[in-house]
């Protein structure tokens, strides 16, 4: 009987992957390469299961970039095991896109470009926090103009992480972080615990805790995709086609001859609480380059229609176009 109960509890988290189209989830391990992220100090010789690190004074330390990559890899495996297509913005101790670190601007832009161009439908950035030795707890961010969908994702992921890690609940917050501002899909940034707090650094040094953190974030994503009970959450109910999932549709709010004109529209779109980016595309047929204000990319036409109609309801011009370059190849 106990086995049965366990099994059904587990099954509740497993989506019937044969019947439901799951969204492409971009997983963003914060920092990397020359950018270590926050640094936590551990008791000498603490086993972390990560690359051993020490500072200039010979103390055993733990780098945020190592924790975020490890948690992200665990999250990636967890989501893939449940049928989710995923995209990691880096897979090694490198900057975004697995390239050597150059500047913070290039690093962050590579991450958002990867997710936007691959048509990711959710974006989860994994970070650990830092302030002082007494700071404690979990907080989750969404963009200040976030869509209801992004807010729902933030709330669900946050609830799960707070529940599993059992650290103080610092709340769901809004901020203008680069990866939240420049992604076109619902995006959240999770700060699991404080590396500046010696107890929480030691906590994050445990592989089992990092696994719990990863599964908590994953469970939040699953709850979101299932509808999460939150109003305004999109449901991914379209049947899976036997073909591989490709991004086919792109919702645009205008196409302009100059970037300046597109930027103005971009600002107007963002003022309505919609995330958007500018994409330039050359059309061979018309021999023209246009700057498109892209608000979303979709696998399923139904989801693209939903966004188009939502934009039109806000008084913005919106069209569905092909997500593939129209030129040959």
């Amino acid at each position, binding site marked *: 009987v106990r086995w049965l109960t366990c099994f059904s509890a587990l099954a509740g988290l497993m989506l019937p992957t044969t019947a439901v189209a799951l969204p492409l989830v971009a997983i963003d391990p914060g920092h990397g390469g020359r950018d270590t992220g926050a640094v936590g100090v551990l008791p000498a010789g603490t086993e972390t299961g990560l690359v051993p690190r020490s500072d200039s004074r010979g103390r055993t330390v733990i780098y945020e970039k190592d924790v975020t990559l490890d948690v992200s890899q665990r999250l990636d495996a967890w989501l893939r095991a449940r049928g989710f297509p995923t995209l990691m913005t880096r897979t090694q101790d490198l900057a975004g896109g697995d390239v050597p670190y150059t500047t913070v601007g290039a690093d962050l832009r590579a991450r958002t470009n990867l997710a936007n161009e691959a048509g990711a439908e959710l974006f989860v950035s994994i970070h650990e*926090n830092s*302030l002082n030795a007494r700071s404690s707890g979990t907080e989750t*961010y969404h963009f200040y103009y976030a869509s209801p969908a992004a807010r729902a994702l933030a709330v669900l992921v946050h609830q799960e992480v707070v529940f599993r890690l059992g650290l103080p609940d610092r709340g769901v*917050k809004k901020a*203008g972080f680069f990866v939240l501002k420049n992604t076109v899909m619902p995006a959240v*940034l999770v*700060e699991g615990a404080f590396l500046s707090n010696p107890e929480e650094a030691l906590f994050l040094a445990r592989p089992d805790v990092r696994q719990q953190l990863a599964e908590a974030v994953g469970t939040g994503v699953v709850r979101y995709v299932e509808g999460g009970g939150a109003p305004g959450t999109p449901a991914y109910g379209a049947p899976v086609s036997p073909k591989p999932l490709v991004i086919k549709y792109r919702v645009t709010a205008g196409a302009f001859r100059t970037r300046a004109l597109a930027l103005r529209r971009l600002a107007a779109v963002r003022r309505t609480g919609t995330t958007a980016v500018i994409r330039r595309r050359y059309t061979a047929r018309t021999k023209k380059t246009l700057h498109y204000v892209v608000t979303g990319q979709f696998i399923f036409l139904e989801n693209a229609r939903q966004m188009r109609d939502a934009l039109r309801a806000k008084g913005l011009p919106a069209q569905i176009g092909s997500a593939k370059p129209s030129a040959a190849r």
Partner: protein
Amino acid sequence: MQAFRSQFLPKRLRGLIAGMALVAATAAITAGCADDASVAPTTTTAGGSTAQTTARPASSRTTVYFLDSSGERLTEVVTSDSADGETALAVALRTLAAGPQQAGLTTALPAGTRLISSSQDGGTARVNFSSEFASGYPSGGSAAEIAVLAPIVFTATEVPGVDSVLIEVEGAPPDIPTQFDLSAPLARDDFPPELVAAP
């Protein structure tokens, strides 16, 4: 549709004015008047398009934001000191860089950070810090970054006419490990509202 378009007109004009101010300010800086912080090389020399940049009366009140003892909440401090020809923006930022004088307040501005210059282009304050700002900037953590940046942005945007802040280090965009986009101006919106909520 008509309503949608009409939103743009004032913005377009504002952009034009800001652009002109920027050109004028650049000319002023290249003319070599950005050397001395205490002289506050602001757009006062760059023409009258930004009314707020004129020097203040010799003594007046300045609002500065420091952190409370937890380092997690902003606390407003109103000081009154002599301006001596400085702009309100320069006085406020200099007071911020000097650190809190009151017990129970803290600052997270990297140690040794000096204000080199400040200016105003339209609604954007341009704040130029010394290299200590970059070398002492926290390596990671949203809370740590917010503790450094929010007091600067809240203090500068307290100055009438300023709504965003572009941070520079030694006159160039800083290359520091930030999760914010420092190539663009920051506004109060970029920070969680809980920062100034009642405790």
